[in-house]
């Protein structure tokens, strides 16, 4: 069984047809990169899987989105429960204006967990997973805003991991960071795939190459090509994919 599947998904924003019949199947514990020019639908597609699109007015979704074989848009799925299973990291580092500790604990607290020792344990585990523990262990009570951009983004990753999701969605997680921090995030993604199934939207082709196992190229709301990253980057089938990754677009 695939971890994540989309079957003939169509999405409309009002009269705008943003996703056109997307079929994709993603294996467990892999990193899938979504690439394509701005406005091609890759972020919209990513946000299908934690139902972030629901927040936008006038969105209509058809087709099936499955996680672990279950349709996440069915009536029996509670949206808060879904979001606990699917973590998300955003483009700009957006830690809450709270302490480092409280940022990671946030997801646990809003889900009603009050057990102090458990929360402390989870915070430590997640900060370690996000390769941040050594840098922040002495300033857990300090404001997260005092961290550097790269550290903030890793904190956001730790925050997403705290609620033990099995899927991690990343929307251009390194686009606002300097090269060193970017490299750290990429290493982290590479390490995290042992534990999570990751989908990452990126504008940076090299990043897709470095971190992902599979790559999906979106263009004008269509999924043009979905294949192993090696295949896409050395011998793409569709000429549009080739033009995009070689920078000959337009």
């Amino acid at each position: 069984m695939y971890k994540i599947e989309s079957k003939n998904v169509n999405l409309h924003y009002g009269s705008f047809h943003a996703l056109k019949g997307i079929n994709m199947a993603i294996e467990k514990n892999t990193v899938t990169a979504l690439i394509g020019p701005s406005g091609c639908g890759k972020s919209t597609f990513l946000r299908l899987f934690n139902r972030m699109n629901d927040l936008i007015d006038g969105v209509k979704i058809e087709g099936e989105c499955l996680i672990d074989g279950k349709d996440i848009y069915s009536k029996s799925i509670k949206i808060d429960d879904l979001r606990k299973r699917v973590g998300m990291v955003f483009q700009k580092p957006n830690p809450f204006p709270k302490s480092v500790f409280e940022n990671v604990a946030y997801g646990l607290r809003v889900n009603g967990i009050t057990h102090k020792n458990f929360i402390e344990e989870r915070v430590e585990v997640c900060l370690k997973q996000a390769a941040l523990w050594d840098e922040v262990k002495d300033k857990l009570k300090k404001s997260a805003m005092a961290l550097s951009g790269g550290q903030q983004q890793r904190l956001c990753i730790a925050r997403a991991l705290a609620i033990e999701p099995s899927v991690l969605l990343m929307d251009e997680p390194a686009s606002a960071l300097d090269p060193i921090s970017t490299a750290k995030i990429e290493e982290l993604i590479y390490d995290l795939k042992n534990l999570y199934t990751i989908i990452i939207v990126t504008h940076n082709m090299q990043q897709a190459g470095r971190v992902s196992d599979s790559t999906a190229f979106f263009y004008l709301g269509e999924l043009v090509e979905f294949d192993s990253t090696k295949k896409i980057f050395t011998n793409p089938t569709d000429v549009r994919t080739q033009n995009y990754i070689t920078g000959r677009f337009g």
Partner: protein
Amino acid sequence: MSHLNIELQDLRSNILEMFELVQTQLTKSKESFLQLDKDLAREVVINEKRVNGFELKIDRDCENIIALFNPVAIDLRFVLACMKINSNLERIGDIAESVAKFVINFKLEPEKELLETSRVIEMFDTCIEIMNTTARSFAEEDTKLARSIFKLDETVDEINIEANDKIAAFIRTHADRINQSLYTISMIRKLERVGDQCKNIAEETIFYIEAKVLKHKSQK
């Protein structure tokens, strides 16, 4: 260790494995020649397919690393060097194979005298030594060792140049051994190429470690 480093480590160990494979091929072709062991020679010919397959795999790995990781500086030089070393090794594999094919087609055991005057066994041994040294210099990133190969190659060249006169003299005295003599000289010609290929490998090793281009230069 970073993802790219892991890939580069894999590439390095694949190249080392390729070295080993080709070294074995060369050693076995020498054995088959000395003992006129046609079975062993056939084994070398069959194994050549593995060498070729391995060459393709390494080529693909290099292509992927360049396409996916866009290596720069020493990493880029390393991948480029590996691609060339890979094809040099494959050629050495070819040479070992064609030696083995000669052995398969040989009718007679080579004359001891011929072997001695033509120094073909010494040629074999030197080539294998050069191979070992090349492999070691690559494995240990030892450019000093790599530079010593240029010296060793001179022995090979010397045997190759002398071989003409020596074999000609041999033919004059042993008119009935012309066939054998011709086989021997073409063997020497082939082995001379092993030295050249190793020289190229050494140049690539130095290129990626020191970023110095030694190709087409007399002073190394």
